[in-house]
């Protein structure tokens, strides 16, 4: 028993090393005087200076975060409504069709989604830019949220709702006091999934950006032809530290308040 436990720990350690080593490598070279991703020739903070002075890059970072937060929040709300609708559908066949339609959107290649959105937006006459990126991000995040929330709904015992009804709860009370608290972990999971999807999406975004609106992944890809400067490493390092700080902060807050977070528990 003891030995298998040790193996488990070792395995976990290896997995974490594999996951974090490339990030560490990236951050390590962001201090390189040499200016390339090999031959470390001395420590410098020049790349960080360069990033801090690059206003255009910061505007793009802010754009990226804004789009991610907004699209994640809106798609979570839409996705929860969608999941509830699918949950309440009586006929098994219709439910299956709806789920299949939802899954098709998840597995369609980004390039196809992006190209079709581009055609759609130009047909309707929406100017490419903030709005078009936001709309397309919401569109590809909704199915993911639905997929995250549905299992939570399905594992909820229907007798809970019956009990609430028996105790005189109306529709609204059932929704806000029984169902939503129960599926909260799913909602948060969906939100954060949507957030990460939006942050690193390249293909869809590339098609629908335009008019001086751009996101980080599009910017970095298009710099690749000339070789990516280490200031991008520096930026990645800064964003990584920010993410770490946010996650740690979230962890402590949820521990303190016993808040029901992703996979949290209720006191």
């Amino acid at each position, binding site marked *: 028993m003891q030995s298998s436990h040790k193996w488990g720990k070792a395995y976990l350690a290896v997995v974490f090393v594999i996951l974090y080593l490339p990030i560490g490598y990236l951050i390590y070279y962001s201090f390189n005087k040499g200016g390339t991703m*090999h031959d470390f020739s001395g420590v410098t903070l020049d790349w960080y200076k360069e990033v801090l002075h690059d206003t*255009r890059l910061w505007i793009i970072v802010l754009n990226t975060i804004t789009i991610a937060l907004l699209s994640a929040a809106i798609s979570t709300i839409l996705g929860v409504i969608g999941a509830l609708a699918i949950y309440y559908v009586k006929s098994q066949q219709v439910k299956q069709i709806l789920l299949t339609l939802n899954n098709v959107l998840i597995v369609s290649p980004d390039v196809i989604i992006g190209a079709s959105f581009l055609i759609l937006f130009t047909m309707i006459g929406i100017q490419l830019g903030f709005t078009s990126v936001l709309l397309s991000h919401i569109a590809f995040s909704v199915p993911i949220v639905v997929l995250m929330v549905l299992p939570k709904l399905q594992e909820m015992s229907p007798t809970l709702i019956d009990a609430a009804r028996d105790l005189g709860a109306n529709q609204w009370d059932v929704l806000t006091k029984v169902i939503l608290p129960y599926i909260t972990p799913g909602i948060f999971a969906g939100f954060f999934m949507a957030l990460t999807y939006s942050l690193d999406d390249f293909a869809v975004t590339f*098609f629908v950006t335009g008019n001086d609106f751009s996101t980080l992944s599009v910017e970095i890809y298009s710099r690749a032809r*000339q070789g990516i400067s280490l200031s991008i490493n520096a930026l990645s390092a800064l964003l990584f530290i920010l993410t770490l700080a946010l996650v740690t902060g979230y962890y402590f807050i949820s521990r303190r308040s016993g808040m029901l977070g992703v996979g949290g528990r209720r006191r």
Partner: protein
Amino acid sequence: MKKLAIFFIAVFCAALVFYYTAFALNRTEGYAGKNTLTVYNWGDYIDPALIKKFEKQTGIKVIYQTFDSNEAMMAKIAQGGTTFDVAVPSEYAVSKMKEDGLLIPLDHAKLPNLKYINPRFLNLSFDPGNRYSVPYFWGTVGIVYNPSMLGGKKITSWNDLWDPDLRNQILLVDGAREVIGMGLNSLHYSLNDTNKQHLRQAKEKLDRLVPNVKAIVGDEIKMLLANEEAAIGVVWSGDAAEIISENDKLDYVVPKEGSNLWFDNMVIPKTAKNIEGAHKFINFMLDPKNAAQNAEYVGYSTPNEKALDYMPKEITEDKRFYPDFDSIGNLEVYKNLGKRMLAYYNELFLEFKMHRK
């Protein structure tokens, strides 16, 4: 429920704050004004100091947007919904955009600095009379090789690659015109040859090269060569300059049988809103001093003859990137061979890729 509500309100507030900050930054940088010019270029393909200088000189605010392939750029421009004033396509993209009616003719009266461009790079088959485009950078297709991995052997021609000692040492770019062209050039045919017999011959010759080919790769060819994963690579000169700047053990040669000449060009797409400003920008980039500064920053070869006077000798006398046109047989631009011929090239290339060792 309350927690959810608080959380979502907080998210929306945060988003609003970020959005407003970006907006304010945009305004202080002057990107939100009326007098702007949107330049659509390859990433990091211009010296940012030049953009600043242009803004100072003209009072026009430049919005610099980037793309990573000609095809993607053409798709974006063809769809509309954007306001690009200047774009920088490669030569084959220029002729395609011209055919598709995506370009606005240039007013040469507003481009007095055009006279500084070497006449050799003007009036070429992809844009006769330079009605729509002005060369921005140019280069060749050639061979990057690593003398230390080849025991000091020098490579000077396409035919050197068929040497049986080079087993599994060569990386090729994944381009039908480049690879078939190399086969044609090695037989001293033109790389725009449309004679099917010649093309077959070239393909059969390429089949004999297969044992020496390690892989046919895309953009990662730069990294693989710089990291010495292979001794030889067939690449564009721009990539070669980057590879050599990463790893100075490597060398580049334009094969003596001849090769391809490529151009990236400035054009005004039909999406342009500020045609006046676009001409100003193109003329500004044609100014010899600016062209020299840009060429030093980007590291590609400039077509601006006068600019060479303002650049260090070790750059302009570097035969690898400013080859001697008299000593190299036939440096040609890819002609538009038409859909059917192009399909035949692609078919031959596919057959070559499937050829077993």
